[in-house]
């Protein structure tokens, strides 16, 4: 096995070629999108397609951000941001609390609730989307942030993750806190949450991207362009009839849509690596 890990000479060159090739395959469409967002419509639609940046970067991006096709992109970015943050923070709070309840409290039907949460793992959003839509519609939450956020907040996965984290903590920690006169919620805030901060950071990244990339649900419950989120909004930019497709602006929007998740990864990665380095559990 060791010679699979440590290669020399030609082996090194080969693995580099392989990885560069892989990266190229992944990067190329993104590169194309970026190139397309720097040309005007005329240059794009006349073959061959340009492979080098053009001079319309500022005009395309300011058009996308300022007016867009149906609705300004800044508005959709804002909607997406509110939804993604709402889902992420909501999920973290709910799953922290439910894991706390499951691990540290004994109550009637504890195992029943535990298995109920577990069961929801097996049901993807698509399976329950029609009844969920009905519920949200009855609550009058269509075209609202609450409607975008609430149905996606409950999370069995995150609950399980925190359950495992809490169960790995020494039971003496709870007992020391009890002796120190901390009630359950005080223990939760003063000790459990700070000690799990690295896990929270890691989960934040995953959940933010999950929330940001939601497509089907926003598509169903937002009918006003004002409430479009960016990921579904890109699709809405394509004209339905014979209108001209505004490729440069759509591509600029696509590039803009990728930025927030990337920023979150970069920012949170630093935070949770730092957390891992002085982890002292």
């Amino acid at each position: 096995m060791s010679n699979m890990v440590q290669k020399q000479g030609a082996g090194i060159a080969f693995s580099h070629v392989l990885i560069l090739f892989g990266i190229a395959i992944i990067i190329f469409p993104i590169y194309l999108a970026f190139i397309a967002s720097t040309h005007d419509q005329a240059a794009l639609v006349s073959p061959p397609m340009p492979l080098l940046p053009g001079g319309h970067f500022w005009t395309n991006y300011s058009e996308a951000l300022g007016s867009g096709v149906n609705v300004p992109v800044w508005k959709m970015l804002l909607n997406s941001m509110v939804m993604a943050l709402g889902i992420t923070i909501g999920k973290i709070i709910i799953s922290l609390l439910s894991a706390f309840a499951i691990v540290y409290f004994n109550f009637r039907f504890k195992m029943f609730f535990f298995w109920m949460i577990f069961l929801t793992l097996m049901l993807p959003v698509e399976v329950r989307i029609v009844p969920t839509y009905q519920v949200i519609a009855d609550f009058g939450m269509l075209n609202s942030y609450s409607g975008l956020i609430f149905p996606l907040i409950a999370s069995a996965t995150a609950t399980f993750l925190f359950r495992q984290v809490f169960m790995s903590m020494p039971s003496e920690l709870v007992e020391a806190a009890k002796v120190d006169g901390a009630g359950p919620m005080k223990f939760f805030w003063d000790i459990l949450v700070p000690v799990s901060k690295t896990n929270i950071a890691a989960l934040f990244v995953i959940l933010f991207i999950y929330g940001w990339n939601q497509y089907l649900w926003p598509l169903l419950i937002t009918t006003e362009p004002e409430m479009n989120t960016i990921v579904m909004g890109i699709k809405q930019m394509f004209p339905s009839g014979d209108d001209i497709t505004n490729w440069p602006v759509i591509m600029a929007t696509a590039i803009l849509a990728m930025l927030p998740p990337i920023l979150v990864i970069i920012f949170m990665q630093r935070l949770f690596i730092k957390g891992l380095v002085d982890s002292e559990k």
Partner: protein
Amino acid sequence: MSFVTLKNINKQYKKGVDVIKDVSLEIGAGEFLVIVGPSGCGKSTLLRMVAGLEKTTGGQIFIDGRDVTKEEPGERDIAMVFQNYALYPHMTVYDNMAYGLRNRKVPEDEIKQRVEDASKALQLSEFLPRRPSQLSGGQRQRVAMGRAIVRSPKVFLFDEPLSNLDAKLRTQMRVEIKRLQRELGTTSIYVTHDQVEAMTLADRLIVLNKGNVDQIGSPKELYANPQTMFVAGFLGSPSMNFLEASNVSRFSDSFKQRVDAYSQAQAGNAIQVGVRPEQLFLSSEGEGDIELDVKVLAVEDLGADCLVYIHVEGLASPLIWRAPAGYEIELGSSISVAASAESLHLFDSKTEARIEI
């Protein structure tokens, strides 16, 4: 200074599985009580019930005469030191010590004063801004002690606090705990399976055996007059040698008469003879009240003295004789060891209780 009273404390985990059986005891103000016993004897459970971390199945616990049986640990005004320290990993040493005081709404400048006093007493002053992960095991243990001290609670509870330390540090901390407890005069309950810790720390010692209190008394008393075979075997290192009267090679006439008289009176109950390794001596024919013809199996030279493992005909496990320093003998050779009647501990084989004859 506070006193603690346990009244008929019971603990059952499942129906029929008794962990603690009807334990009643009084712990006087300022007393250092050590609960000792082998693992699984329920000693930690008993301590945790006093702390309130474990519910009692029956009985009552009083601190200063106040019934605390149903109270939460935080309401009992006790402080506990855990075996694995249980420091809050994300807090500095200072915050670790201050946490319990903050929860009790002690003003911040008083907290500062108390933490500084405690850390001075424990030589922790320079470590106050550090995290527990940056401390050594001994320092962490001292922080755990500090966390208990700053609270100035009614009772200190120690749950095998030294078990995670190496031997040298353990001895140091043992002395330090004793000194601190004397200075503060706080009533303390200390659980350990280590009989050296138990003997050295305790004002009073409780030997717990399968959830029953076998004997309570000062370490000296328990060592000199163990009331059961269990206590006799548990205290002292190396532990007491046991043999049946029938294994003894020769009795002195007077002692033989007393043994026979007991056996007759008790309808043939055998007598277990207990003798501590240091009470045996090398004998020539006719010395001592009991004499054993034995074979030397092994000699361990400890420097200050030697432990000689000797085989007695008819006994499965070897006895230990603590021989004087520098004792040398060929392995396998036959010798005789003896002990006088005053140094023997006699027990009834059936009841395992101490008998006087």
